[in-house]
Structures are given as structure tokens and as C-alpha cells.
């Protein structure tokens, strides 16, 4: 983006401030976690949320990849309060991840943390977030389907097979979420950006099988437990499902119809899941937040 002077023929309205190149808002330096201060090369910033920055870096040796989630102190927060909040959140997320992993829920492993400096180091998960994979898959199907709109398309079986792939994925997501709920954790922010598809390590074994598009293949891994908590309340579990359902509805409307597959797998994933599905119907009626009236 270059800052150009407007052509002389067009008078600049006096009330519009000219861009000030000394304060480019988009490139303001991010606070680097102190752990990186001795590194020869700066770490790779992966994503940035309201509370945390996610870096890709290394653990112990250059050969071990990891992710580092950093919660910088907020300039508008009282420093003592900020330190307490950061400590609480780092530890809470680490405990939840450790518990999940111990109980066999597919989440990144915890490698290290510093609750004072505000960072959490976790296992690097290969692959891509579900949102991107799903959109890629839906787009490919849409593109392919165009010439097949005719009646009795000779390739009708292929379409069916495609749906089968999506059904399988929805089932895997439902099982993963159910497993997490079954061990007493609720995620708090279940979206298709917080689910990852990790390629299976033994993908060579089944190479060539299927119809060749492995976009939706892979293991479902739950990520970003920044808003997670330990809870076995059906209400909290149902809200998790509701948030995920809405996420599917808004970002992948064409996959929304398959959500029932996810719920079916969820229903079989732990004892008491069916009660949660009942509760989900209540939550759908009223939305995520409980009414404060009466």
C-alpha cells in the first residue's frame, strides 16, 4: 500500500485527515514474548486473537515443532489484575489440555508454560483447520456438480459417495466433541476454526483407495481451549453443540444439513449424551444465553 498524493485536479476535502505514514496501524510492532528475546530469528506469527498471539516455533531442539500461545499484558488493564488474569488463563488452559490428553481426547499436548510471562507451549498440529478444508471441499463439489445437474446423471453414484465422506467427517467430529464432554470438559468456543484435520501418518497404506479426494480425510483434533472449563452440566454441553451448529450454519450453510450426523455420533459417544441432545432443543428455542427474566 503506497501513500500517494491525490491528483491536483481533485481538491482534498479539508475534513479528511491525510494518511499519516508515521503511524501505520497495520504494522504496529507486536509485543514479543520474553522467551524469544535471545532467538537469532524472530518466530513466525500464525494468528492473532483479541487476547492471545499464536506463534510457530521450536521446543528444546530445532527438530521439534511447537506452537506458542502468548497472552501479552493489556495496557488498559491494571497490572496486578492483568497478571492474575493471565496466570489464571494460562494455567486453566494447560490443565484442561493435560486432562483431555490424559483421558484420550484428541487435543495438542502441553510442552511447557510460564504463567508469569504469559505463554503456553503446546504440540504443533499438522494439517489445516476444518473451516478451510470444508470450504475447499464444498467448492470442489459445487464446481464438479454443474455439468451433472441433468437428470439421471451417469455420475450420480459419485455424488452419493461424496456425501458419504462428509457424513464420515461429521461423525468423527461428533465423537471427538462427545469424548471431550464425557471427560468433564466444555470447550466454550466450538467453531470450525477450532477443529483441525490432521493428515493420518499412515496415509501411504491406503493410497489410491476411495475417490481420490482426501480433503476431508484426517483425524479431528480440538484446539484453542482458551475459553474452556471443567463442567459436566448438560446446559454447558448443549451450548457447546449449539455454538457449533450455528458455526456450521453461518460459515458452511451447505453442510448444515449434515449436522444431524454429527449429533447422532455425539449421542453414542458417552453416557448421558442423549440428555444433552434433549437440552440442545431447549437451547435452540431460546439461543445461547439464558433468559434473565423470571
Amino acid at each position, binding site marked *: 500500500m503506497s501513500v500517494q498524493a491525490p491528483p491536483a485536479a481533485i481538491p482534498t476535502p479539508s475534513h479528511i485527515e491525510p494518511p499519516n505514514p508515521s503511524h501505520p496501524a497495520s504494522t504496529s510492532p507486536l509485543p514479543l514474548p520474553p522467551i524469544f528475546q535471545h532467538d537469532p530469528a524472530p518466530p513466525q506469527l500464525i494468528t492473532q486473537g483479541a487476547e492471545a498471539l499464536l506463534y510457530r*516455533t521450536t521446543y*528444546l531442539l530445532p527438530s*521439534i515443532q511447537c506452537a506458542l500461545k502468548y497472552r501479552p499484558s493489556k495496557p488498559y488493564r491494571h497490572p496486578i489484575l492483568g497478571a492474575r488474569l493471565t496466570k489464571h488463563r494460562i494455567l486453566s488452559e*494447560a490443565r484442561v489440555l*493435560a486432562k483431555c490428553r490424559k483421558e*484420550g481426547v484428541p487435543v495438542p*499436548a*502441553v510442552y511447557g508454560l510460564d504463567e*508469569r510471562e504469559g505463554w503456553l507451549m503446546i504440540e504443533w498440529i499438522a494439517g489445516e483447520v476444518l473451516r478451510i478444508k470444508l470450504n475447499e471441499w464444498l467448492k470442489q463439489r459445487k464446481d464438479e456438480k454443474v455439468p451433472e445437474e441433468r437428470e439421471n446423471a451417469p455420475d450420480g453414484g459419485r455424488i452419493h459417495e461424496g456425501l458419504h465422506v462428509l457424513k464420515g467427517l461429521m461423525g468423527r467430529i461428533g465423537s471427538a466433541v462427545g469424548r471431550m464432554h464425557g471427560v468433564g470438559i466444555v470447550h466454550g468456543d466450538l467453531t470450525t476454526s477450532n477443529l483441525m484435520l490432521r493428515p493420518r501418518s499412515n496415509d501411504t497404506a491406503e493410497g489410491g483407495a476411495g475417490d481420490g479426494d482426501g480433503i476431508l480425510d484426517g483425524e479431528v483434533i480440538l484446539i484453542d481451549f482458551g475459553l474452556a472449563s471443567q463442567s459436566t452440566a448438560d446446559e454447558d454441553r448443549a451450548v457447546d453443540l449449539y455454538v457449533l451448529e450455528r458455526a456450521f450454519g453461518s460459515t458452511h450453510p451447505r453442510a448444515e444439513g449434515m449436522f444431524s450426523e454429527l449429533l447422532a455420533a455425539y449421542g453414542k459417544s458417552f453416557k448421558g449424551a442423549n440428555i444433552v441432545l434433549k437440552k440442545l432443543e431447549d437451547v435452540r428455542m431460546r439461543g445461547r444465553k439464558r433468559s434473565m427474566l423470571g
Partner: protein
Amino acid sequence: MTTTPHLQTFTLEHLPPGYVMHVAVYENVRNAGFLQKQLLDGNEGFEYAFVDAGVVLSTTHLLAAIYRALRDFQSGRMKSRNVHSEVVFSLSSNNNISESFRRFGITPSTTNLIVVKISLPSKQVSRDEVLKHLTEVIEGESVDFCDEVLGGMVDEKRVRKVYKLGGGKSGIVQSKGEGEKRELEVLVLGGMALRGFGG
């Protein structure tokens, strides 16, 4: 048959320059009682982390403890006497220091031993010095510090016990062999990272 003694020298990620660690492994150690006594007596010539190889899963497991100890040293948050005892304590998943020495440190019955010597910017020790001294004082056979050797020395049951990862309902580990081992390793790393904060 005599082989040249092994001693591996490492640096770790995200540490300031000048922090170097030397790691050696010995099997069939016959003087563990003597070595432990030197630590208990505070013999300054024996400032090492002596770790019982029976509770160390892998190179990563040990390096994680060293890293934790060095970070705590650097930030003035060590809980034990020196950076070497801190390495042993860093293997622990709870805050009981003397218990950590009993569980992870050398005991008179130790036969497979990992030795760590840390060279600090303020107190540098060369590889040759370490190797010379260890060759003199340790009665045992020097072997390579690698996952293959450590995998042959570790008692996984004991590891599960000290990290409270016993079978039961926890550890729904589906994959066998290497996958299972890797799973145990990451659970241990998580336990160490959350030391004192509960799991």
C-alpha cells in the same frame, strides 16, 4: 574391547548463549552408593545431575527437565540448591524436592545412570574436563545418549507410577508400540510443565 566414552554436548532452543549441557549415560554402574554420597556430602567436585535412567523415557524427557531447570535458574525461580539438583527436581510433577531426588535421582541401587553437567556463562566447564572426570570416577560402561539406549533402560511401569499415569480409566491409548510410547512421553511432559499447579 575398549570404546571411546560417549558424552553428548547440547544447546537448547530459546536460551541465551553460553548455556551448554553435557550428557553422558552409563550402564552397569557399580559405585552408585559412592556417587550419591558425594552429592549428600556436598562435594563440590561432584556438581552433577545424577539421574536414574529407569525413570527417563527419552532424550526429549531429559532435555525438557534441563530446559525447565535452566529457565528457572535464569529467572531466579529455582527451588533447590543449584542448577544440577534443579534438573532432577524438574523431572518431578509435584513440588516435593526430597521426594523428587528419591524418585529420579541416583540411589545406591542405581545401575543405569544419566549424568548431566551444565556449563553456565558464569561457570564454564569444557567437554574434555567433564569427560576426564567422569571417566575417572564412574565405575560403569559409557553408552550413547539416544532414544534407543534410554528405551532399553526405562521401566515404563515405574514412570506411570511416579507421574500418576497408571492404567485404570485414564490413558485411553489406542495406538500400540511407538505411538503408545509417544503418548506416555507427552503426558509426562505435561505433568512436568504443570508441576505444582495440579493436573
